[in-house]
């Protein structure tokens, strides 16, 4: 009986274990931004801020036509790392150099928005939170640290837009052990302002993240539109197949 009681006690607590995951920084929801203007703004931010160190080696420049840009617009405004619009978004920085300079090779961003999905939130949520939680940390080689990826090798590329921030840490009693104290995050402190206000920076980051989500799967728009038509067709087909079958089977005794 003792073992059974223990077993049931364990089983009753099992659902709670869902929350005992890796214990990362809580992710904010990436705002829904699917209009062309946002995606184009995101493309602009991507090419200007990200493409220097990161590559997007599965993405061709001319795919940007899908978000409403013409070849001329791409060529005149966004074509930094290649000569022709049909080329891939590669970067000139060699992996060996990157490793020496930063300590890690900047990952390719082609499908980063799909790779970073987890039970904690979608890939877009992760990236949206990551890009907005850099803070000043003089102990790090780059001078920057990050809440979502502690001790990240990447510097705060968009610091001029967001400004310099520092986290406010408060001491609290450990909920698991009353004799101990832990540092918890209690909000941000703007040390030096950036060229954008906090809400403007959030909007710009949302645009960039929307672009990254789009770039991870450029066919998603077509996929969903076509899907609707396919499902409608198949529903009609299934209905007809059902009645056809019924008409043959009604004569069976």
């Amino acid at each position, binding site marked *: 009986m003792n073992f059974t009681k223990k077993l049931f006690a*364990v089983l009753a607590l099992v659902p709670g274990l869902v929350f005992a995951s890796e214990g990362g920084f809580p992710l904010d929801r990436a705002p829904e931004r699917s209009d062309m203007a946002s995606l184009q703004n995101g493309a602009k931010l991507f090419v200007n801020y990200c493409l220097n160190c990161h590559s997007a080696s599965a*993405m061709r420049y001319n795919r940007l036509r899908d978000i409403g840009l013409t070849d001329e617009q791409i060529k005149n405004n966004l074509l930094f790392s290649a000569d022709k619009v049909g080329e891939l978004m590669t970067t000139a920085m060699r992996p060996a150099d990157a490793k020496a300079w930063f300590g890690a090779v900047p990952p390719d961003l082609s499908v980063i928005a799909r790779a970073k*999905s987890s039970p904690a939130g979608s890939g877009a949520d992760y990236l949206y939170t990551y890009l907005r939680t850099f803070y000043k940390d003089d102990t790090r080689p780059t001078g920057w640290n990050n809440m979502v990826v502690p001790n990240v090798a990447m510097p705060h590329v968009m610091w001029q837009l967001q400004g310099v921030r520092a986290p406010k840490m408060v001491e609290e009693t450990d909920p698991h052990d009353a004799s101990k104290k832990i540092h918890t995050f209690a909000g941000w402190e703007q040390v030096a302002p950036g060229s954008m206000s906090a809400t403007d920076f959030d909007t710009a980051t949302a645009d960039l993240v929307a672009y990254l989500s789009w770039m991870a799967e450029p066919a998603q728009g077509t996929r969903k539109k076509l899907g609707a038509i*396919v*499902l409608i067709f198949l529903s009609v087909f299934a209905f007809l197949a059902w009645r056809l*079958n019924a008409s043959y089977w*009604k004569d069976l005794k």
Partner: protein
Amino acid sequence: MGAAFKETKLPANAPAGHKALAWIDDRFPLSKLWNDQWGKYYAPKNFNIWYLFGSLAMLILVLQIVTGIFLTMHYKPDAALAFNSVEMTIMRDVPWGWLVRYMHSTGASAFFIVVYLHMTRGLLYGSYRKPRELIWIFGFAIFLCLMAEAFFGYLLPWGQMSYWGAQVIVNLFGAIPVIGPDLSLWIRGDYVVSDATLNRFFAFHVIALPLVLLGLVAAHLIALHEVGSNNPDGIEVKEHLGPDGHPLDAIPSHPYYSTKDLFGVSMFLLIFSAVVFFAPEMGGYFLEYNNFIPADSMKTPPHIAPTWYFTPFYSVLRATTADFMYVVIAAVVLYVVFLWVKSRLSYKAKMAAAVIGLVLIIGMLTLEAKFWGVVLFGSSVVIIGALPWLDHSPARSIRYRPKWHMWLYVLFGLSFIALGYLGTQLPTPAYTLISQVCTLLYFSFFLLMPWWSAAGRFKPVPTRVTFHPH
């Protein structure tokens, strides 16, 4: 040799189509094949929804082959090129490449869902009982090949999960004593999973296993048609033939099951398309998130999990800890005692069981738990093939068995699903305990089946099928 060649002569004004068919039939048994295998193959008329999954499995096989052929046109089986050949070439540059890719990845998961449901039908209605044991064995071989096919295929995108999943599973072979490390080296073609491994897994996935699968499916169907189909009531329809020589309770597959299967196919395609077009990742279960990161032999992911369809058996492997080995040893002792006391096996068989039990116990005390985990992992799959000889129920179908048998099936099903869920999670102490309990339930279901399947009050089995006119 048969009789001398005799040309079928049709009247001169017969339609060209009839003449063409007659010409072929004189030289190749086309009409005979059609009629024997489908057109005039008489199947019981009381088939229900559980009987759709065989034809659906065949449809998915064709789907996987066709989408696979198109993928192979663009995929590059080279460690440096593989990831981009999928994420750049196929998903972006090739017109409709994304659709073919999603159909193939969704098809793989759909294949396992359909096959597990197909096997459940076999369990419910005793479709593996005499004289259909060989159908079950071929089916079991298909299941093994399907698992291997999925395993080999999963390495091909060369993502983080592809690489590390393959690394973990091939390393399991290293746990086999004496030959283990050499066996792993032989399978991999290298000391770690590498380009060599990718190339050979590509060969296995694209041609070797599909050929074997097609052969086994043909054998599976030939064996079925030789004895005839079972049915939800578990009775032999051939025991009551009509004046035309066909079973009274059977109907020709064409047109009745042609139309029924067509409807089944349309419903399947609806669900399949909904996934392909609206949820191809299926929350990370059909396309793992981690697999969108190119394979990096220097970075081990924090959580390596196999694809969802392997997780029940993976749970059994992880449940086999050093502590659990003592439970397994106790179970072996209990089982041998049970065989001696309760079974009607011969004295020789009982002695053999005792000797095997003793050898197993000595082995379990000397060899490490990792090896026995692999053994239990393999056994959890292989034991399914033994069903025809474990089930001693006087009634084939669940319909005429005692009600509590159904509850045992439900318990088995829940254990299997629980093991599957736990296989996707990190192994905490509580989860490990639950998977150990479920492992015991899983194996007990099979190993004690010779007794519980014959126990209880059975309902009278009818002589004719229960059929409700549509």
